[in-house]
């Protein structure tokens, strides 16, 4: 009870104000509605408190409270030494973060969006990812690269790319893609505590979305293990595998399909690399059908990798039809709203693919 009250008060003036405005009688609930933004904020706050080697750097993270307000209040609490505003040079500050990690600190390096990480990608891959191996295990790089990934709304080609496939391609990196607040909080804490470089792919459209968080998931030592997927909805007819925002779309599609008697099992990958193939395989061995859903482009993407892995493993013999991939359209993201809507997977596209796969 005490823990949840502390969390309730800490999770923001927002929550208190809303409740006060509505004149609702306030008794602290065991489960709580927490936005993804607040979950990430809490995770960082707790890890900054727990280990003084942890620090956050990036553009606008300190005095502006973060470009998307994810680091709200942290500079006020921890000051210049732990929360650092950088000049505009992704390559520069990613390099600085990697150097700091090599010298014994535990940086959280924020990219305003992962699109801008391309400016720094040499530091991420050639320095952060490969160093532990290249040094025969002598030099770890305990760094977290985090920021929004994938499509937002009306930000066009240079702000909408999904980098899950690019980073997950590289040995030496762990790549994580949370969906809800529990994922966000637990995975970020695990990422910060992990001695490996972790690419933490957030989603801007999810920042403001509240999800229910259990009392257990609000505890200071709650972590979600990296490398384990979660079955969000058990089912028997078909397996839907997704990550980030599209897990929500899959659940929506499953709800619609349930009314027609089609029972979908929805898997939230949580981690892209290492991929929890076992979870997907067990599911396919039960349902015999698989649809992958992602926001990124189709070629050489997350769905493509899942198809290959299923083919290579025991679950292949259990498939009653080929795997279908639902992905973003293979074009740079256009700006106009109607074009953008048609460039990303919609719930109706998932429903269509399920029915096609099941031949109904």
């Amino acid at each position, binding site marked *: 009870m005490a823990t949840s009250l502390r969390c309730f008060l800490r999770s923001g003036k927002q929550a208190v104000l809303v409740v006060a405005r509505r004149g609702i009688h306030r008794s602290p609930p065991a489960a709580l509605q927490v936005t993804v933004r607040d979950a990430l904020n809490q995770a960082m706050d707790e890890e900054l408190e727990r280990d003084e080697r942890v620090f956050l750097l990036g*553009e*606008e993270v300190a*005095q*502006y409270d973060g*470009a998307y307000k994810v680091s709200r209040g942290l500079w006020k609490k921890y000051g210049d030494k732990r929360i650092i*505003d950088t*000049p*505009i*040079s*992704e*390559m*520069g500050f990613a390099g600085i973060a990697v150097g700091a990690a090599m010298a014994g600190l535990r940086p959280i390096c924020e990219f305003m969006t992962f*699109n*801008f990480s*391309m*400016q720094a990608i040499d530091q991420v891959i050639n320095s952060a990812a490969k160093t532990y191996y290249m040094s025969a295990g002598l030099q770890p790089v305990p760094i977290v690269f985090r920021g929004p990934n994938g499509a937002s*709304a*009306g*930000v*066009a*080609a*240079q*702000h909408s790319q999904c980098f899950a496939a690019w980073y997950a391609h590289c040995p030496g990196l762990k790549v994580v893609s949370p969906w809800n607040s529990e994922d966000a909080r637990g995975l970020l804490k695990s990422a910060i505590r992990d001695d490996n470089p972790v690419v933490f792919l957030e989603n801007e459209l999810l920042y403001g979305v509240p999800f229910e968080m259990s009392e257990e998931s609000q505890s200071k030592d709650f972590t979600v293990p990296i490398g384990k997927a979660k079955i969000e909805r058990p089912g028997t007819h078909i397996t839907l595998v997704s990550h980030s925002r599209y897990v929500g779309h899959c659940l929506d599609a499953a709800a619609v399909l349930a009314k027609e008697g089609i029972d979908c099992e929805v898997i939230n990958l949580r981690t892209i690399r290492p991929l929890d193939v076992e979870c997907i395989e067990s599911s396919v061995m039960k349902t015999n059908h698989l649809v992958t859903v992602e926001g990124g482009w189709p070629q050489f993407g997350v769905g493509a990798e899942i198809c290959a892995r299923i083919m290579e493993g025991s679950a292949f013999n259990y498939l009653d039809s080929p795997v279908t991939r639902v992905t973003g359209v293979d074009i*740079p993201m*256009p*700006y*106009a*709203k109607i*074009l953008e809507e048609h460039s990303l997977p919609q719930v109706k596209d998932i429903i269509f693919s399920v029915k096609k796969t099941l031949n109904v």
Partner: protein
Amino acid sequence: MHQQQPFDSSLEKPQFPGASAEFVDHLEFIQPNVISGIAVYRVMDRQGNIINPSEDPQLSKETVLNFYQKMTLLNTMDRILYESQRQGRISFYMTNYGEEGTHIGSAAALESNDLVFGQYREAGVLMYRGFPLDLFMAQCYANADDLGKGRQMPVHYGCKERNFVTISSPLATQIPQATGAAYALKRENTNRAVICYFGEGAASEGDAHAGFNFSATLECPLIFFCRNNGYAISTPTNEQYRGDGIAARGPGYGMLSIRVDGNDVFAVYNATKEARRRAVAENQPFLIEAMTYRLVMTC
């Protein structure tokens, strides 16, 4: 042209390929001069009176009225589009409040076929070149009349006809591109110049360093125009850099540099006109740092 002159090797002078200088026998570090840095060139005082008559560009009344009309038009268009964004009718907008002088003064000093690379706060340059209001609006609203067919975010204008390269979001990528373009134009022998606009924050990007350095080594007819408005989103200049602004970096790259009052349209005009003339005549880059102020909350 930029090689050391050969001299008698028996002289007590340094003979390093990397630098040409004299010897000095006492230890002294060169101080970065940020207290009294590079002076700010201006033509008008704060009341708008010409201070030094020999610096008066002596433009016709028509021309000056056009400057004023364009600056006011830009400001008005900004207000309408900014409000559209606040009302959710367009998803994104960046205003030019406070920096109109930098756009109009520099645009007026160029030839119409000079190539412009902007960052995202140079709509006045395009407006000065006659881009119609309808097309500004069409681009922001991403409607069927948009030249870019709805592919680009608002304010990402481009116009081939008016030699204005389409705005690209990632910061400072236009700087080395401008250098490359200037090099190409030099080889074409067309007496065209390139102007490359960017903010003082974007100048922190690695691309800026590469662009500046190469423009000098490749001897390009190029004007780098830095709008130093004091802020990059919320980051003030004293956190962006510790040196004497952007103008002081120019000499480090071998570039002729000047700092001007960006709010003084005649100063901007004079500096750009002279830089353009010499950039083309002498095939070398110029750096103009226009000091101004961003009169809007963000970006």
